[in-house]
């Protein structure tokens, strides 16, 4: 139904065209989902957009053909292509809010689409719009149709965007990470709904994502992309249970699991942002590389069956790859020695934020304890108050009820803290793009922490300490003069980690520090935080919505919902035998890649 052959895309650059997609081929069938997996910089979004005829500014298609039900997309003129986009191809973007016009009500937007592209009358279009809202399981379609985008939640907006995409009865839909940033349970519902709609309406779908677990759930066929080329493709469950390409294996190894204890293994290095010719693009990071891998770029060849393809010289000889044992990551300590009193104790905490009418009680009576050196996880969905608890600990949010104690002594409710208290509790924020001052160099960012919290050091000692901590977080000291805009996402997060640990705190709060990162970067950051923690004996409060990540790192887990405790306990107990219904619901919503080999080689 949709065939893509030999697609290559390059970006114009001062030094000549820069190839970012190389000879991509895929086929999508009605009622089936083709998953396209890859990390940031793999070229997957560029490739898929180019496949449907859309090129961002500066990009040039250097070859290939795309055929949708007999029509060749690249050979028709722009007007004809636009008509095709309007009627037979749909695109659901990552951020729903950007595909909806904020100035119009939701119902009006779909109605306009239907009236223009399917020639319906206003009444017909209205009825059809409501039907579409019902199909995407939006509650009370009449009321939603009257709302503006800013009056709806993220999940509702994403469903509305999907309804918009379905409105013109397309033959092909492209989904570009449409569930990023949504709660686990919302994500699970959306994915299940998408799968159902695709099959019911016999639409062909291309689903782009970096999340292999999600793709395992939603796609029938899988393409793994690296450096602009497909490195492995085939039926999804076969690839996920018996990967043949080392990169696929590395991605799976980096995935934490909520179902059992894993040690996610990070992948060192950075993917090249372009197509590499003349050698295997993955060779520099590949544990199975041999000298021959650097001499030529392997072809994508069938292995096993005609639909399974791998781009690896050693694929046949290596066979299906098994999970690597986690190295460099020390075992979790079984139990923390019971101290007489916990390092930090939170008792019946209440906090709110906002002014006047918009005042919201975010935390309504949460209690938790953190012992010295312990790793405690705080799990909840958005709106659970987990971030607010972290901020109350460092004094950014006022304590309105209950008490927080450090070493038995209560902390001031209005947020005032002594220097020693501030040193003892440090926080790392989620988004390193906004948590580092863009006008400060790495040296200034980490150095400020040193100046404030370790004033006893002399200038020379401080410089030595700075180089030491940068080495600990595996940042080249040469980067210390750089600004955040000159660093990658992973590097920026390392700077934030360095900044927190250099103060020699007793507790570090990690507020969703791996959310929104690629899975290999995520694993590397987790490894790093664990190493730092063990090196300095710091306690960790790990705030996250991701149960899989939490399981791989925590010694004790607290689950919160709407500002209240739900359940707590060690992960084995909580995840295997959850007592609360909410915990069970959260666990059920987690998506994991299925696979026989996974289970057989569980550590």
């Amino acid at each position, binding site marked *: 139904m949709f065939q893509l052959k030999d697609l290559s895309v390059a970006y114009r650059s001062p030094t000549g065209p820069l190839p970012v997609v190389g000879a991509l081929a895929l086929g999508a069938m009605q009622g089936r989902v083709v998953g396209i997996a890859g990390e940031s910089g793999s070229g997957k979004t560029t490739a898929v957009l180019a496949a449907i005829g859309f090129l961002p500014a500066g990009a040039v298609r250097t070859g290939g053909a795309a055929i949708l039900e007999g029509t060749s997309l690249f050979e028709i003129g722009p007007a004809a292509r636009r008509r095709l986009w309007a009627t037979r191809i749909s695109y659901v973007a990552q951020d729903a809010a950007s595909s909806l016009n904020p100035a119009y009500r939701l119902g009006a937007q779909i109605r306009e689409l239907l009236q223009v592209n399917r020639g319906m009358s206003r009444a017909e279009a209205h009825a059809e719009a409501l039907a579409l809202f019902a199909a995407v399981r939006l509650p009370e379609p009449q009321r939603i149709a009257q709302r503006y985008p800013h009056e709806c939640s993220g999940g509702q907006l994403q469903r509305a965007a999907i309804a918009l995409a379905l409105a013109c009865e397309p033959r092909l839909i492209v989904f570009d990470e449409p569930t990023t940033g949504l709660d686990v349970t919302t994500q699970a519902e959306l994915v299940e709904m998408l799968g159902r709609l695709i099959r019911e309406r016999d639409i062909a779908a291309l689903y782009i994502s970096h999340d292999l677990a999600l793709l395992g759930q939603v796609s029938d066929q899988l393409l793994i992309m690296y450096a602009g080329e497909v490195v492995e493709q085939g039926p999804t469950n076969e690839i996920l249970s018996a990967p043949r390409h080392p990169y696929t294996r590395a991605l799976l190894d980096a995935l934490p699991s909520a179902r059992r204890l894993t040690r996610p293994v990070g992948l060192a290095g950075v993917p090249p942002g372009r197509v590499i010719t003349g050698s295997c693009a993955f060779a520099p990071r590949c544990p199975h590389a041999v000298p021959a891998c650097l001499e030529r770029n392997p072809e994508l060849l069938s292995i096993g069956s005609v639909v399974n393809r791998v781009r690896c010289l050693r694929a046949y000889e290596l066979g299906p790859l098994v999970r690597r044992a986690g190295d460099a990551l020390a075992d979790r300590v079984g139990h923390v020695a019971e101290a007489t009193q916990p390092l930090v104790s939170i008792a019946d905490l209440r906090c709110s934020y906002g*002014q006047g009418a918009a005042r919201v009680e975010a935390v309504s009576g949460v209690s938790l304890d953190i012992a010295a050196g312990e790793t405690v996880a705080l799990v909840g969905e958005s709106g659970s108050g987990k971030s607010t608890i972290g*901020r109350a600990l*460092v*004094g*950014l949010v006022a304590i309105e009820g209950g008490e927080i104690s450090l070493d038995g002594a209560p902390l001031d409710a209005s947020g005032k*803290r002594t*220097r020693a208290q*501030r040193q003892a509790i*440090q*926080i790392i*924020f*989620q*988004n390193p*793009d*906004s*948590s*580092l*001052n*863009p*006008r*400060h160099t790495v040296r200034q960012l980490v150095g*400020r*922490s040193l100046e*404030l919290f370790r004033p006893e050091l002399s200038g020379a000692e401080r410089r030595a300490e700075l180089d030491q901590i940068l080495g600990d977080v595996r940042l080249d000291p040469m980067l210390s003069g750089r600004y*955040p*805009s000159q660093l990658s996402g992973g590097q920026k997060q390392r700077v934030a980690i360095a900044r927190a640990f250099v103060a020699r705190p007793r507790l570090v709060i990690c507020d969703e520090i791996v959310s929104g990162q690629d899975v290999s970067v995520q694993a590397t950051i987790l490894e790093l935080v664990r190493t730092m923690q063990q090196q300095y004996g710091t306690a960790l409060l790990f705030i996250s919505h991701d149960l899989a990540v939490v399981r791989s790192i925590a010694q004790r887990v607290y689950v919160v919902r709407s500002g209240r405790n739900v359940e707590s306990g060690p992960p084995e107990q909580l995840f295997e035998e959850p007592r609360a219904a909410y915990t069970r619901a959260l666990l059920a919503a987690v998506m994991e890649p299925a696979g026989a080999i996974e289970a057989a080689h569980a550590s």
Partner: protein
Amino acid sequence: MSLARRVVGGGLAGNIGLVLVLVGGAVAVAGPLVAPHSPYALKGVPLESPTPEFLLGTDQLGRDVLSRVLSGGGSVLLLAALAVLVTFAIAVPLGLLAGYRGGGMFDGATSRLADVIMSLPPLVLVLILVIVLGTSSTSIVLLTGLVTAPRVYRVLRGATQALAEQDFVLAARARGERTGAILIRELLPNITGPLLTEAGTRLNYSIIFIATLNFLGLGVQPPSSDWGLMVSEGRVYLGQAPLIAIAPACAIGVLTIGINLLSDRLGVHLSRTGTA
């Protein structure tokens, strides 16, 4: 260093602006040194057309127009620059604080005060105040500075507000940084873009404003060869010796257009690369 290189290398408009500013600035600053005659000497026949001795002719009292133009820019430029300094001295601390504290009493009070000042026609305001305070250079500088401050305050407050909710500001608060330190170390470096653009625009505005005040006779007095004053005096003689009024007017135009183009260029450039 690299800022200068980027400024020089930036587009036709920016380059024209740079040239104009350099020429106008050179005339204003160094003009008196190269003037062929004294601006006050009654050397020639009044209202003469240009001759080799008096390149732009003479004015109504027989003074060399060229020399007067060359000597007349200094005061305007100096006073305008001082006025801009006054503006920023007022607007930067208030704007930063109001933007950071957003929504509180301080913000409310200061913003309303700014609104009041902005709602009064600036010329009328200064006229009234000058009549009360007298026409010294100091009062001109202070009043011009005060009158232009609210707009800069607004811009800086807006720019700061956009930043105040960012995580790096939260991180600074969690570290226990005091408000002053947050304003200066964290926020100020991130608003240099709008700050410099406003500086250029306000300088322009102040030059024209002060020239206007002088034109109206509220600033420097004759026999000063200030450009605004020259235009005022030369108006009457436009039919006989137009250069008396036109030459200083062109000088004002060259300088202000140049500043305008240059600060546009700087603003575009800084907003692209300055902040993250």
